[in-house]
């Protein structure tokens, strides 16, 4: 399974506008195209995970993730915040790149954990943070995934 296949152009936003952690999570969730009620439920679940410890893994990258009933299949989104925001990341540095992963509570294909591991591995590639910051359009993000996560 390739990461590229799990993202769509609609779920990639290179100019996130939010200025706070909560607003940014909401904006990221909105990329999944859910209804208002589902977005509110998902926000609570994502926040609950963040309250256990930030998903900011350092080097400007965060990977908010959870299981939620609002997802009937594995859903992913990517957002980039020019200038970054404080996300209580592990290294204390601002976060610029956000990967959202949402899986259903019961998952027949069992992809959630392998995908979470793959995204974390992709994000830890030393070249990736700079490459993400230089992306010019959503398609370039998909191409980068293709190149770096085979």
């Amino acid at each position, binding site marked *: 399974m390739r990461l590229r296949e799990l993202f769509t152009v609609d779920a990639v936003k290179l100019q996130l506008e939010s200025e706070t952690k909560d607003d940014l999570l909401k904006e990221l969730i909105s990329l999944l195209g859910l209804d208002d*009620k589902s977005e509110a*439920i998902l926000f*609570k*679940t994502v926040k*609950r*995970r963040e*309250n*256990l*410890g*930030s*998903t900011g*893994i350092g080097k400007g990258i965060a*990977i908010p993730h*959870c*299981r*939620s*009933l609002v997802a*009937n299949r594995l859903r992913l989104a990517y957002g980039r915040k020019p200038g970054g925001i404080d996300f209580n990341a*592990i290294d204390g540095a601002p976060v610029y790149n956000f990967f959202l992963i949402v899986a*259903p*509570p*019961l998952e027949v294909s069992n992809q959630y*954990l392998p995908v*979470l*591991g793959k995204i*974390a591995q992709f994000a*830890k590639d030393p070249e990736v943070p700079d490459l993400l910051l230089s992306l010019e359009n959503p398609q370039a993000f998909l191409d980068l995934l293709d190149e770096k996560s085979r």
Partner: protein
Amino acid sequence: MNEQLVLMLEIQDMTAKAKEIESGELGDLERAHFGMDSTAAATTLRQKAEELVEELKPNVRERFRKMVKRFDRAVVPVIGGVCFGCFVSIPTATAGEQDPNADLQSCETCGRFIYILA
């Protein structure tokens, strides 16, 4: 969606996550990539889950606890008309409403609380 149902799913999700963090692959990933203290996180989740159980209406709480004791997973989805607890078909009348999860429903076969997934 029925509020009691949402609450039960939250409780179930927290409990499942606590288990996954304590003993599963998720715990390994959370420790390795996110630096999570998995024991503390699991304890927090269980405490919060128990607090939420107290917020359920008394009759729902009682049944929820019974179901958890009996099946572990008290709330299950219905996918394609099949209960994913006992894998028996649910009558189609249950699956055709506008918001199929507006009311709290149970599987007539196994008794688990159910929610309909498209």
